[in-house]
């Protein structure tokens, strides 16, 4: 087991280094003038030249790469051109909001996806199956930014059921201020016993989380269905039937155990996809997470910030995959042999 873990970690580290190199290469295709943007609107030619020096843009490329690599490892991810603060600190400030959103979305996706997948697999080929399959394909075909706008219009403006934007109701900003401990508003409200704030944060989470959950829900439903159908003919299921368990019980007690491995593998995948999908919806919901930061960086051609976010998400994705792999290996020894 230990050998497996060590091997996977080593591989992951190698991949991360490759990721860093790729992002660095992407950086140097830039045709803009980061020095001018950095120096700001009042800069003279001399100030821009000084900015070039400050940003290290006057050194040869390989030197810049090595310096970049070293910097990343030490936590220096560059300075954001539009906020003038370290990129890593900007990311750390923005990340909790996005993580909260993604985790809530994944929870919703699991709650929707798994049962529907099971129902679909129960009677394959029949109406319920076709409808659910169409529905899951619908989910993965949905343009997320459009869904966000439509749902916001419908539920916030027309029906007034849910709030339009923000992480919590601004009325609570002064009456029940949130004490930041972990950076996750929901967690912080629970820790602080700030119940009005908890209610508000949860209510504000609903709409964005549903939007982000569409794709994973569709994907999970399809995977559960496929995996269950694949394994339903296996000997141990036949055995269960022979032992007298009813179909319903088989689905309830055994099928999920069979469906779990690929679903958990898929979780890492949809975690990565959802992290990136938040880039498209956060601006619409005023959600102050990585997505808003990325959108701002794109609009200001803030290359260090764009790369920082890219790196962060890629590393998170690699780590998520690593964790899932190790957990799966811990559960299923056969995997360790691969």
């Amino acid at each position: 087991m230990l050998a497996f873990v060590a091997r996977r970690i080593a591989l992951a580290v190698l991949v991360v280094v490759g990721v860093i190199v790729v992002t660095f290469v992407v950086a140097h295709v830039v045709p803009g003038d980061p020095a001018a943007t950095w120096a700001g609107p009042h800069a003279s030619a001399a100030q821009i030249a000084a900015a070039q020096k400050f940003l290290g843009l006057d050194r040869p490329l390989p030197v810049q790469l090595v310096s970049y690599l070293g910097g990343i490892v030490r936590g220096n991810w560059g300075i954001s051109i539009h906020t003038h603060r370290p990129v890593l600190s900007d990311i750390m400030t923005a990340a909790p909001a996005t993580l909260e959103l993604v985790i809530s979305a994944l929870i919703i996706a699991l709650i929707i996806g798994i049962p529907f997948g099971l129902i679909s697999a129960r009677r394959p080929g029949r109406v319920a199956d076709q409808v659910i399959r169409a529905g899951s394909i619908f989910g993965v075909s949905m343009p997320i930014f459009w869904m966000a706008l439509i749902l916001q219009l419908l539920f916030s403006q027309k029906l007034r059921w849910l709030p339009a934007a923000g992480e919590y109701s601004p009325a609570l900003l002064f009456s029940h201020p949130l004490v930041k401990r972990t950076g996750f508003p929901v967690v912080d409200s629970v820790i602080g016993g700030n119940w009005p704030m908890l209610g508000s944060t949860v209510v504000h989470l609903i709409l964005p989380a549903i939007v982000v959950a569409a794709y994973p829900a569709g994907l999970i439903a399809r995977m559960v269905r496929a995996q269950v159908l694949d394994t339903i003919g296996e000997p141990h299921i036949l055995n269960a039937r022979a032992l007298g368990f009813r179909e319903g019980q088989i689905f309830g007690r055994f099928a999920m155990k069979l469906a779990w491995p690929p679903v958990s593998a898929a979780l890492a995948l949809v975690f990565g996809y959802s992290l990136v999908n938040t880039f498209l919806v956060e601006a619409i919901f005023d959600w102050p997470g990585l997505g808003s930061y990325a959108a701002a960086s794109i609009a200001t051609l803030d290359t260090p910030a764009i790369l920082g976010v890219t790196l962060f998400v890629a590393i998170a994705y690699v780590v998520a995959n690593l964790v899932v792999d190790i957990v799966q290996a811990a559960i299923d020894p056969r995997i360790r042999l691969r």
Partner: protein
Amino acid sequence: MIETPVIAPADAVLPRGVRLRRALRANPLLTVGGLLVVLIILVAIFAPLLAPAAGDAGTATHPLDVLRGPSAVHWFGTDQVGRDILSRVIYGTRVSPVIAVIVLAIACAIGIPLGVAAGFLGGWVDELVMRVTDVFLAFPPLLLALALAAVLPASLTSLTLAIAAVWWPWYVRLLRGQAASVAGRPYIETCRALGISRTRIIFRHILPNSITPLLVQVSLDIGGVILTASALSFLGLGAQDPTPDWGLMVAEGQSYFTPDWWLVTFPGIAILVTAFAFNLLGDGLRDLLDPKRSFLP
């Protein structure tokens, strides 16, 4: 699998037309998907005839007619410079799907040779190619495409290149798997022993065997590329005005969304329906052609 096989052995003697029809009936999703895709392609081909105001998909503007709601004259209303949205949505069928085709063509052009080389030759070639694809696969697709598109000057070309740069690893993996599995079979060893060249083996055995999974993967991916392309155009990183790209139309329509909902709604539906159609088609093809599906989502 519990599903009855679509083509039972006895059916093999039935005429092709009947087999096809049975297959389609047994796969309603595939049928619907296929029909929708054909419809979309027809709309793209006949766009100049179908669009009431073809000029509106180009540089024509009508400033006195801005932001009119759906009516008999303009079924989908007009946008912020008075252009007919129906015409622009129709011409949009010539934008994203075409980008998708080009992207996947590039992805195949890179992925097939690399994948076959890796799978067939094995050894260090395989290791190297696999590690490199691992690095690229470590990025969720939209992410790397976004980073690339953000540093290139915004245009459809940059968009296409950015997405292609992200999509090719899947095809390397796919072809590698195919090549490796074929290469490992005993009859291939026999062929080699008989002195048959590697090239012949590739072209006569590996590639033909790969067509089916390749076809399935491509049809599954078209929907994904269309969504990625419209997402990047939405962020301003791809198509520029006046190109009638649906993602761009949603982005431009955002500021007017309340109360002029039609600017965003119709292009968005177009994206949804198109991606849905191709995904249905791909899913149905996968069920039909590749019963032992592999989990490339």
